[in-house]
């Protein structure tokens, strides 16, 4: 998507966007838009800063800016558990949800590239489940292009200055009853890595029922995305129930061979 204030403001519940910027002005613009959208939609905004010396962004009641503690080793599971608590507490305080803005430069010198990529991959399940909104701010001056490309693949979309569209390429939302996931938009090699962790997180909770995958608003899925669905189908005892599939998706799944998948 295009990286400007309006698209940052209009992010929707569950969005998890890799936001690339190369200068301080565009960084400020993105953060300002993100905060405006949160204020408009009654969201709490939590900003994770890269270091203690960074100047505070002018705040107000719903806005919290906290430096990431880089004096201790990073534990992704504990970090995500803490984020879940932040969301629950914000809802208890009357907010509609939480918008998290992360200055990912905090990871430099603290977290190896592979672990950062694994964390970004894992956290897709958190956003899809809680409906929190994640703006992962990547300073292109601080990350290698190859690492940025890998990080992009595990986000539903990457926002850049010359990007296109006002919404992320893809969206994922975990649905409660029946348990499953709603897929929106397009999944290809540029963003497909976000799908499998979301599905894998649901598998242990299926309790013998099929996982329901609502694809009525899915415009495109490449073979990697279909493979992620088939892998999930094979690990869930009740298989997969796919709702609203276009004929092409159904054809691709069938051409891939027998799998515990029902189309409805």
């Amino acid at each position, binding site marked *: 998507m295009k990286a400007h204030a309006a698209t940052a403001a209009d992010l929707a519940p569950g969005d998890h966007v890799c936001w690339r910027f190369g200068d301080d002005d565009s960084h400020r613009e993105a953060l300002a838009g993100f905060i405006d959208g949160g204020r408009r939609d009654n969201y709490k905004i939590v900003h994770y800063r890269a270091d203690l010396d960074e100047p505070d962004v002018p705040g107000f009641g719903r806005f919290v800016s906290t430096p990431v503690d880089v004096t201790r080793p990073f534990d992704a599971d504990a970090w995500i558990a803490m984020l879940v608590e932040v969301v629950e507490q914000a809802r208890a305080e009357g907010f509609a949800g939480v918008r998290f803005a992360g200055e990912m430069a905090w990871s430099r010198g603290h977290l190896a590239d592979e672990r950062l990529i694994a964390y970004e991959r894992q956290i897709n399940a958190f956003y899809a489940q809680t409906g929190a909104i994640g703006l992962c701010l990547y300073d292109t001056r601080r990350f290698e292009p190859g690492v940025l490309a890998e990080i992009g693949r595990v986000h539903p979309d990457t926002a850049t200055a010359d990007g296109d569209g006002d919404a992320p390429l893809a969206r994922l939302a975990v649905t409660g009853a029946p348990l499953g996931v709603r897929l929106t938009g397009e999944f290809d090699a540029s963003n497909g890595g976000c799908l499998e962790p979301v599905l894998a997180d649901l598998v242990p909770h299926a309790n013998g029922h099929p996982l329901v995958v609502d694809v009525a608003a899915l415009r495109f899925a*490449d073979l990697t995305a279909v*493979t992620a669905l088939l892998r999930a189908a094979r690990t869930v005892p009740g298989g997969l129930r796919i709702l609203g599939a*276009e004929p*092409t998706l159904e054809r*691709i799944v069938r051409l891939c061979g027998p799998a515990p998948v029902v189309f409805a």
Partner: protein
Amino acid sequence: MTGSVFTHTALLYATAAEYLDATVTYVRAAREEDRPVLVAVPGADLERIRAGVGGGDDDGVTWWDAEATSRNPGRIIPALLDYCARHAGRRPALLGQPMWVGRTGAERAAVAVHEALVNRAFVGVDATALCPYDTAGLHSSDVAAARRTHPSLAGIAGLAASADYAPDSALAERNAPLVAPAAATAMPYDAIGALRWLRRAVGERAVAMGLSEDRAADLEFVVTELATNTLRHSGGSGVLHLWADGDALVCQVSDGGFLHDPLTGRIPVEPTAERGRGLLLTHQMCDLVEVFTGPAGTVIRVRMGR
């Protein structure tokens, strides 16, 4: 059991009577040995063979209309291998006719490639295959190709080894450059962020040309897979060309990769395998797939009609 070696025989016939006699005899003999039979010939011939075999409903014979199942010759081998795997141990008898009068030049070359590759793909498969060729109606070059791609020939004179058998050179001759017409739309790409643009352009063009939404969506999938292969495996950039040919849309992807194994895309793979399925599905979805590959690069051309 008559043996455990794969036999691949071209049936060279000149009249409808010869055709019917030889094909019906082949099917009946296999049924008498209780071998499963797969008949994949064009629809009109299918009905004639079925009538000739007689015997009412016989669940030992599977009938496929080749004009549908073999329209793209590249999808025949995986289908036959799958059939043989499902009837393993019973020496299936295959009667497959991929060539018929009216095939286009590009399709005829693809049939020869297919027939040459059958010999590699079925090594170790316990089955027989008989492939009818009409010596009176087909181009003489196609009959000559059949002699080069089939180790044995059957005809009114009986069964004999083919003196012209040379499948590798038949294959190499058909690995010819594929050049897009000058009027084609060219879309270079070098990053995964471009995939969305490539497929949207393909989808819009397909629908504008009158292809169904389904076929347009199939083509978007195919082009995305081919371009993704470029970016993942050839380590560089590629160019997509698009053009209309009659009422079909042709898409061609060129990159610096090299397809070492000519059987790529023709061997069934596990449903959740990470690699090797993109080209397999391309063959399934498109009306024709042509490949030109070498150390200097690869061109894959796919055709999608209405």
